[in-house]
């Protein structure tokens, strides 16, 4: 890392710790003395860096003050544009969410797992498994998580699990999507389907339902039969009105009754009686006082099955992408922090334990403070990574929600090379990205200077 390689390298014995205090000796016999040769050695790198990194940086800064065509000077116009454009503001907002949530989550998770793995024998294997995502392209990781969060519970594993758990606690309705035949005297209300008119006690109400595959009617269903005449209760029959070979809304003797449909008797807007249909579809409301009642089929009968959450929709997309990033980066944090942990002198930990500190206290008061520099480096590295996030958003967010998932790096590409075609604004966005990363540059340079002296 730019940054912490010293801590880690020393810890792992990678290097021989050759960062001796800077030798100010003028006559160091180990150093070469030919500036000309130095220039030759440095030339290829200098040429490439000058042409493809430094010159472009200057060019971008200048370009950001010119309009779309590049001919007209617009001052800070492009920057003003970025702060008033909705898409860019969303990108800013999302970048803030990313920076606040993601690096801290990964650093914390990495710290916990690194400490826990210290106590097991297969720590190397474990770290390797968690590290593996770093070897894969962000593009492939994006596809992996697009599949994980796919909305169809027959494709996406997360929704399959969510639906499974949901159905365990609240089983789905028996007749999803079924509804009264259009001609039947029912209207859709928030509570379900309610009859338009009221029925006097003793009436037999015909409730023909459609919109449900006959093959999915429960096996205990028998042929629907008309309710017996001459009773005093409100009653009726509810059946699947397939109407093939028969007439609509009429029992033809072969149509099946629909068992276990919940029904309600309603008076003045209040539910006053409840019942359930039998295997032949017949139902009665026993014990209702004589009078007239509306009949209602509560919505619970017909609710569509729970299909899980729209993970890739506008509201959840950023947390979803962050979760995939956590999957990718946690291994890095663990490896880095574990290297730092192994550099902590055992004596310090033992001394604390001998003094009667609990494991938790050792962790909080000895391990974490000693690890602080490493944690800071991990955190800064992750922040830089997050600021440049592009591929994951590009791949995981479906085209229709890329606007909601937008981040600066993606917006910069869109504006410059995608649909936007405005390289003035694109340059301004690039410069702003550079300014956001600049503190990390200073952090690195300071750290480097400190290590050298």
């Amino acid at each position, binding site marked *: *890392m730019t940054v912490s390689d010293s801590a880690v390298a020393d810890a792992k014995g990678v290097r021989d710790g050759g960062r001796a205090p800077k030798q100010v000796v003028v006559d160091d016999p*180990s150093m070469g003395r030919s500036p000309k040769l130095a220039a030759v050695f440095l030339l290829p*790198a200098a040429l490439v860096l000058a042409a493809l*990194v430094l010159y472009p940086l200057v060019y971008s800064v200048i370009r950001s003050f010119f309009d779309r065509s590049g001919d007209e000077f617009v001052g800070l116009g492009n920057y003003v544009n970025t702060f008033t454009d909705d898409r860019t503001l969303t990108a800013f907002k999302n970048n803030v969410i990313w920076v606040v949530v993601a690096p801290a989550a990964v650093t914390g998770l990495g710290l916990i797992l690194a400490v826990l793995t210290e106590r097991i024998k297969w720590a190397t294997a474990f770290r390797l498994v968690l590290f593996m995502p770093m070897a894969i*392209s962000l*593009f*492939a990781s994006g*596809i992996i998580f697009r599949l994980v969060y796919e909305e169809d519970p027959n494709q996406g594993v997360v929704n399959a699990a969510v639906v499974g758990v949901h159905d365990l606690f609240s089983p789905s309705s028996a007749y999803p999507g079924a509804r009264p035949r259009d001609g039947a005297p029912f209207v859709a209300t928030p509570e379900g389907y309610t009859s338009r008119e009221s029925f006097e006690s003793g009436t037999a109400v015909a409730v023909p339902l459609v919109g449900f595959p006959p093959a999915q009617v429960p096996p205990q269903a028998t042929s629907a039969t008309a309710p017996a005449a001459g009773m005093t209760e409100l009653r009726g029959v509810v059946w699947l009105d397939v109407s093939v070979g028969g007439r609509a809304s009429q029992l033809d003797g072969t149509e099946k009754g629909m068992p276990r449909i919940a029904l309600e008797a309603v008076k003045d807007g209040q539910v006053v009686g409840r019942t359930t249909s039998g295997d032949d579809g017949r139902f009665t409301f026993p014990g209702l006082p004589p009078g007239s009642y509306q009949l209602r089929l509560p919505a619970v009968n017909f609710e569509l099955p729970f299909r899980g959450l729209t993970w890739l929709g506008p509201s959840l997309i950023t947390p979803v992408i962050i979760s995939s990033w956590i999957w990718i980066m946690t291994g890095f944090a663990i490896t880095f922090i574990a290297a730092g942990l192994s550099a902590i002198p055992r004596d310090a930990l033992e001394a604390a334990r001998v003094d009667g500190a609990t494991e938790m206290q050792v962790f909080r008061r000895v391990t974490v403070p000693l690890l602080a520099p490493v944690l800071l480096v991990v955190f800064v590295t992750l922040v830089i990574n997050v600021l440049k996030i592009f591929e994951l958003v590009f791949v995981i967010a479906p085209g229709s929600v890329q606007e909601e998932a937008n981040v600066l790096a993606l917006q910069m590409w869109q504006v410059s090379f995608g649909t936007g075609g405005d390289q003035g604004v694109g340059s301004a966005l690039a410069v702003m990205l550079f300014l956001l990363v600049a503190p990390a540059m200073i952090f*690195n340079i300071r750290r480097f200077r400190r290590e050298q002296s």
Partner: protein
Amino acid sequence: MTTATAPEKVRLVEVTVSGAPRRGFVSRVVGKLGDGTIQVILALVALFWLMPVFGLLVSSLRDETDNNAGGWWTIFTRPAQLTLENYQGLLGNETVLKSFLNTIYITVPSTVLVVVISALAAYALSWIEFPGRAWVTTIVVGLLVMPVQVALIPVAKLFGAVGLFGTITGVVLFHVAFGLPFAIFLLRNFFTGIPRDLIEAARMDGAKEWLIFAKVVLPIGKPAIASLAIFEFLWVWNDLLVALVFADQDSAPITVALRGQLRQFGTNIDLLSSGAFLSMIVPLAVFMAFQRYFVQGVLAGSTK
């Protein structure tokens, strides 16, 4: 539940404040968790981490109909649906094959160039005294975190002017440029760690710079060079953004070629999963074979 745990949290805070050897909630929980429990938890975490990749692998081994009909987890009940059909389809798909080759044509030269150029520069920064050496090194450190975005537009213009836009050479050059700062930094750190006596002895023997570089520094620097090469290889292999901007249809690597299929994700799972896995095979193999170097490389340069 929340009310039940609240007092525990308070106690935890007390511990941190007072530092008395009383045991807080978390510490009691951790204490009670034996190593056995920790192992179980970590095993679950590892499984959790592997599952998404496993899901992609299984999906790539099921045909289109099966992928549309049910999730990859159905193979536990119906293992017969596994097939190599998708991969056969990929091998017959010229665009994908060509893009796979392009990935190799881009990655290998980029890696070689970065290693060679950075080794030269790192040597000069480590073992040759010249005015401004500290400044050059500082600039390299500063460039470590430079976002590629600042160069996309200008370099696209530049490449357009010299006929490199849309070519593999252009993509390679861009990768080299943005790979160099980290590469120089990594190698410089390693080279400066080489014992002075070794270099001094070589100079005493009258060895010239080129000889010291080739016969002393490079052989000792092998582990660092290996780390760098692996890291650079993976970085270029896995790139999407740079190729998206600078490659055209004929020079597009596999990531760019597959990207067009994303629009119809739900119905393209067979092609996308097998294609993504094809693009992952090489990095995974490199990772497995050289994990030690890779881990060191990432530890040494992850700020990119």
